[in-house]
C-alpha cells in the first residue's frame, strides 16, 4: 500500500513515514502544497495523509483541487485545528477522514487502512482469494486456515494482486506499490517476489499474462 504524507514538521513527517512503514505501508513524504501537487501528478497513491497548515498554503486548497479534477485518492486530514467546525469543513471539502494532533500511531494506521480499503471498493478488512486470507492490520496471512509466513515485500505484492482478483497488474504498477521514490528498485525484484510467492502458495494461484503482467486466478 503506497501512501503520500504531506507534513512540514520534519520530526512528525519522519515519524509518519517510519510508523506507517512499520505497519507495512510504503510512504512518500513531501513538505508543501507545491510538492504534494507534483507528487500527485506523477504517482498514484492508495491513500494520502494531509496536514492542513503548510508553509505555502492550506491543505484544504490541495484537497479542493484534487476533488475538482476528479482525483479519488482517499485522504485523511491531519491537523492541530480540531474544533468541530474545522472538522466539518475538512470533511465537506472532500476529505475521507480526520485526525487531530496529537494522535495515536496505531489509530492513524488503522484509519489509513480503512480509507484505502474503501477507496478500493472493499468493506471487509481482510483480503480473500483462493483460500488465502490476508490481514493488512496484523500483516499476517493464512492459506486454507494454516498460517502463511510472508516477507514484507511478498505481503505487499500479494495484497496488491488480491485487491482486485482477476485484474491484471503490470510489473511497473506492482513496483509502484512496493517502493517509494527514495528506494532503489532492483530490475528483477518483482519477478523474484512472485517466484517466492508461487513457491509458498502454489504455482497456479498467480497467473502470468504474457506482455501485460500478473493476476490472481479467480476460481471458476
Amino acid at each position, binding site marked *: 500500500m503506497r501512501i503520500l504524507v504531506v507534513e512540514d*514538521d*520534519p*520530526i*512528525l513527517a*519522519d*515519524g*509518519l513515514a*517510519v*510508523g506507517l512503514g*512499520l505497519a507495512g505501508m510504503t510512504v512518500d513524504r513531501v513538505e508543501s502544497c507545491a510538492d504534494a501537487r507534483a507528487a500527485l501528478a506523477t504517482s498514484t497513491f492508495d491513500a494520502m495523509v494531509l496536514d492542513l*497548515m503548510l*508553509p*505555502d498554503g492550506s491543505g484544504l486548497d490541495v484537497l479542493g483541487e484534487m476533488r475538482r479534477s476528479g482525483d479519488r485518492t482517499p485522504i485523511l486530514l*491531519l491537523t*492541530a*485545528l480540531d474544533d468541530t467546525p474545522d472538522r466539518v469543513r475538512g470533511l465537506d471539502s472532500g476529505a475521507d477522514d480526520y485526525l*487531530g*494532533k*496529537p*494522535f*495515536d*500511531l*496505531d489509530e492513524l494506521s488503522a484509519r489509513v487502512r480503512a480509507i484505502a480499503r474503501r477507496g478500493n471498493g472493499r468493506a471487509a478488512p481482510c483480503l480473500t482469494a483462493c483460500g488465502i486470507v490476508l490481514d493488512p492490520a496484523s500483516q499476517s496471512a493464512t492459506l486454507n486456515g494454516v498460517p502463511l509466513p510472508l516477507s514484507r515485500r511478498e505481503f505487499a505484492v500479494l495484497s496488491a494482486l488480491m485487491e482486485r482478483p482477476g485484474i491484471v497488474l503490470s510489473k511497473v504498477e506492482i513496483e509502484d506499490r512496493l517502493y517509494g521514490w527514495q528506494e532503489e528498485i532492483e530490475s528483477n525484484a518483482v519477478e523474484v517476489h512472485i517466484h517466492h510467492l508461487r513457491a509458498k502458495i502454489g504455482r497456479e494461484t498467480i497467473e502470468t499474462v504474457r506482455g501485460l503482467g500478473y493476476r490472481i486466478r479467480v476460481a471458476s
Partner: protein
Amino acid sequence: MSSLRGRLFAILLTATGLIWLSAAVWIYFGTHRELERVLDTRLQEAARMVNSLVGSANMTVAMAALPGSPAEAGGYERQLSCQIWSFDGRLVARSDGTPHGRLTEVRSGFSDRIVDGEPWRVYTVANETAGIHIMVGDRLGLRDRLVSELIKGLLAPTLLIAPLLGLLIWISLGQGLRPLRAMAGDVRNRDADDMSPIDAAHAPAEVKPLAQALNGLFAKVETARRHEREVTAFAAHELRTPLAGLKTQAQIAMAAEDPAVRHGALQRIALSVDRTTRLVRQLLALAKLDTSGPPPARETVSVGAIFDEITEAAPGAAPHPSVTLDPALQALTLQTSRELLTLILRNLHENAVQHMPADGRISWRSTASGRGIAIEDEGPGIPEDELALVTQRFFRGRHKSALGTGLGLAIADAAARQLGASLRLSNRVDRPGLRAEIELGG
C-alpha cells in the same frame, strides 16, 4: 455625596430654600416700611382731624368724637391714643386708655418716645388759635406684631408646601435620571462575553459621552481579547504538532524491532524535546511582553557582557558557527533594560545561528550612530516580500529552519518596541545573509 440624585436633590432644595428665604426677608422689610408709612399717615390724619374739631371750638364734642370703645387686650383695637395739652402744660383732654404722662415733649411733627416703659410713636399738631398741642400716638409694639402676623401668614403655607415640593423634586430627578439607570441596567445585565456597543445614538446629550466612552472601552477590550484568543489558538496549534511528532516517535521506539530504527526515533525525540522546550520558553517570553506592566527599569548594561552570556548559552545542534564581536561593542554600555536587551539579542542571535551553514560566521557590529547593534549572518537572508512578515508571530518563511519556531523575530520586535527602539531587518548587500539592526535611543 456619591449619589447623583441625592446631590442634585440637595442642591435644588438649598437653592429653593435660599430663594424663599430672601423673598421672605424682602417681603418683611418691604411690608414693614409700607406699614410704617401707612400708620404714620394715619397718625397725621387723626391729629389733623382732632385739630379741626378743636378748631370748631367745641372741645367737649371734640373729646367725645375721639375713638372710645373699650379696649380689648391682645387685639388691634385701641391702637391710637390722643392727648390735648394747653401751651401752659395742662392736660386738657385725653382719649380712653391713654397714659397719663405727656406723650411727647416735641412741639410739632413726629417723635419716638418711651412712655411707661413702652416705645411710642407720636405726631403733634400745635393749634396756635386755641393754644393747645394735639398729640396722637400709637405703640410701636403693636406695629411689630402686625408685621410679624403678616409674615407668619405668608410663611405658613410655604412651610406646608416645602415637603411636597421636596417630594416633587425627588420624583422629577428620578425621572430625569432614568436614561442613566437604563444604561447601567443594560451594562449590568450583560454577559462577560458581550462586547456589543451600547445604543449611544438615542442616549440624551449628557449621557452620550459616557456611552461613547464605554463603547470605546468595549472595543478595546474586545480587540485585546481577540488578540489573546488568536495567540492562544496559535500557541495550541504550534504545540500540538511537536507533541504529535513526539508521540509518533515514541510509539515507533516502542514498536520497532530494528535497533537502528529505535535509536533514530529516540534521537528525534530528544531533538523534538529541545525544540518544544524552546517553543514554550519563547511563548512565555511573548506572553510576558504582552502583559503591559510598568515600564522596564533602566540600568547601565554592558553589551560585551550580554554577548558573552548569549554566545555561551546559544543552543546548538552540531557545530557552532564562529561569532565575532566588534571591539566598539565590547566596550559599549547603554542605559536600558538588561532583561529586554538580552531577550532581543538572544533571539536575533539564535535566528542567525539557525539559518547558518556550519562553517558560517556571525558578526556583531556597531552601527553608524554608535548606539545600535547589528547582527549579520551568512545564511540565505529573507526574501524581500517576506521581510515585513517575519516579525509576525508564527510566521515561518520559505527559508525556515528545522529548529525555528516562527517566534524569535516577533519577540525581538515586540521587546524592541517596549524599549522604544526599533528593529530593522535587511538583506546584506556585500553577500547573502541577514542584517538585523537594533537602534537604541538615549
